């Protein structure tokens, strides 16, 4: 049966203002041209892009994932830079010693929001020494280098307390 889904109920319409501001500021930053013609073209292009991204990012009722405030994102990225530089030093020492074997292990997270899971797995890949191979639900498979003396199970708990605790206490 064909339903007329294009008839819009006027009370339920949802306009994503935040997404529009983000996309429009990227347009202004990339072109870096503040004439009236350029601003009008950018406005129209942003409206077209947002109209066609319905069902992917937002829905009839709101966004499809939990929103993260800008302050949390700023703190998190600063923390991430620190972690990257800290682990790169230990990785260079591991290149010089050269006596290690890779292994794969599984870590189960406690959060279930898809945006937070993708951010956590992306930042696991970004820090030197670990790569996320596969994600199913909230179970990650992680490839890492085994340090030949240490017990294996420390890596999972270390990752958990490093990244995941940052999002949980913020809600």
């Amino acid at each position, binding site marked *: 049966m064909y339903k007329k889904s294009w008839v819009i109920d006027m009370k339920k319409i949802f306009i994503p203002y935040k997404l529009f501001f983000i996309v429009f500021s990227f347009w202004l*930053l*990339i072109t*870096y041209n503040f004439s009236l013609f350029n601003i009008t073209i950018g406005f129209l292009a942003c409206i077209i892009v947002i109209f066609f991204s319905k069902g992917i990012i937002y829905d009839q009722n709101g966004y499809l994932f939990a929103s993260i405030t800008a302050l949390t994102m700023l703190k998190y990225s600063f923390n991430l*830079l620190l972690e*990257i*530089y800290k682990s*790169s030093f230990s*990785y*260079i020492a591991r*290149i010089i010693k*050269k006596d*290690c*074997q*890779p*292994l*794969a292990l599984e870590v189960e997270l406690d959060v279930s929001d898809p945006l937070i899971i993708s951010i956590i*797995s*992306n*930042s696991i*890949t*970004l*820090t*030197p*020494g670990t*790569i*996320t*191979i*596969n994600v199913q639900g909230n179970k990650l*498979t992680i*490839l*890492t*280098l085994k340090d030949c003396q240490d017990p294996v199970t420390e890596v999972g708990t270390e990752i958990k307390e490093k990244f995941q605790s940052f999002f949980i206490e913020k809600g």
Partner: protein
Amino acid sequence: MIYKIILVISWFYISFGIIGIFRFKNMYSRLLTSSKIDTVASITLIFALIVKSGFTPVSIRLILILIFILITGPISNHVIVRSAYLNDIPVNQEEVT
């Protein structure tokens, strides 16, 4: 004057990335090493360029390139390693050649 010191640090990272490609014998170790050190090298080098050029339109483009590298670099490494892992290459295998 500060940017020269940061550039010297980035040379260090680039040369260690090249050493890491040729030094290990296992395939997964090479995949882990080279791509990771490469990410750190690009962050350091672009940060040095931002410090050199000050607050101009050039530095805004550089910040956008840095954000782009930080988002798409992990995805491409993840895709390569995942396609090797799902094709049943064993993890603990010594490379023959």
